């Protein structure tokens, strides 16, 4: 879902950058409040893991491949959508500058789609699904699927505004491919949460709040 430089006119890239910077500032504020020494391993491992797995494109049929985005995972594990903005921003900076994966001018829109939209949909989707009674792994999986799917639709709308893709075919194709890619997102997110919960249950944000309130 990494948008290259050629897909957006400069002035539109600038607008998305400004919006992204607002969320980056909020994410830094969150980080100053919430990140303590004991969170260092979790943030570093999540960033490295998300980076590695984003390089692993899996086939999803229809002549298409896809990989985990990781916004939902970061947000659920660290207990805030801003965690996704924080970690995905770091990942996208390295990907764009060193590997040419996603543009430089379009880094703002990519942070917006994968970090902000992915993080917020993933986090609040997870909370809502858990509240209606789904178990935590199913909630995480479905929320991650939704995060991938909705971020893709947002990208289709951005591409339509830019005149790069026509609106309806863009929505249909982005929606179809990312409905399939989202299954990867859902399974890996649920599995990663299972592993972290098993290895270090105390690192999961939701367990921390449970302990604090009981």
């Amino acid at each position, binding site marked *: *879902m990494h948008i*290259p*430089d050629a897909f957006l006119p400069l002035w539109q890239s600038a607008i998305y950058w400004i919006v992204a910077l607002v969320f980056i500032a909020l994410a830094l504020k969150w980080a100053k409040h919430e990140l303590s020494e004991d969170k*260092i391993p979790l943030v570093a*491992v999540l960033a490295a893991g998300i980076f590695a797995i984003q390089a692993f494109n899996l086939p999803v049929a229809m002549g298409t491949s896809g990989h985990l985005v990781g916004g939902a995972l970061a947000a659920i594990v660290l207990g805030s959508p801003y965690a996704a903005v924080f970690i995905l921003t770091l990942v996208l900076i390295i990907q764009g500058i060193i590997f040419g994966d996603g543009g*430089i001018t379009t880094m703002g829109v990519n942070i917006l789609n994968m970090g902000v939209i992915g993080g917020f949909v993933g986090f609040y989707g997870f909370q809502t699904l858990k509240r209606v009674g789904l178990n935590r792994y199913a909630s995480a999986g479905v929320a991650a699927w939704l995060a991938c799917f909705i971020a893709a639709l947002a990208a289709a709308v951005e591409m339509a505004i830019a005149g790069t893709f026509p609106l309806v075919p863009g929505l249909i194709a982005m929606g179809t*491919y990312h409905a399939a890619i989202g299954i990867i997102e859902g399974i890996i997110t649920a599995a990663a949460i299972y592993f972290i919960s098993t290895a*270090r*249950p105390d690192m999961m944000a939701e367990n921390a709040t449970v302990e604090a309130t009981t």
Partner: protein
Amino acid sequence: MNISNTQFLIGGLVIAIIIGGIAVFFASGDPDGLESTALYVQGDKTLTGDSPEDGDPEAVGVSDAVEYEAPLPDYSMGEEGGKAGELFAIFAGIVIIFGLAFGATRIIAAKKN
């Protein structure tokens, strides 16, 4: 099974490196969802059909876009770098992002105290 912070840190880094290493050999060469959509709206691909080998997803883009040459383009050291170059690129990337996230979090956490 509770493991220490150091074990979690090293274990996580090792898992990331293993995933990156496997990706170099087994990642799909098919275009991703955005590129597939670009090929589809250009008429180079049907919605559910195969992607063309030599399709150019960026043909649909604007022509005066910023041209940025990344040092390790597409997680490789160029054509001549081969698989070894790709392994180097992905391992370098994992170490850099790990160090960046570790360092950034540490600086932020230290300021708090």
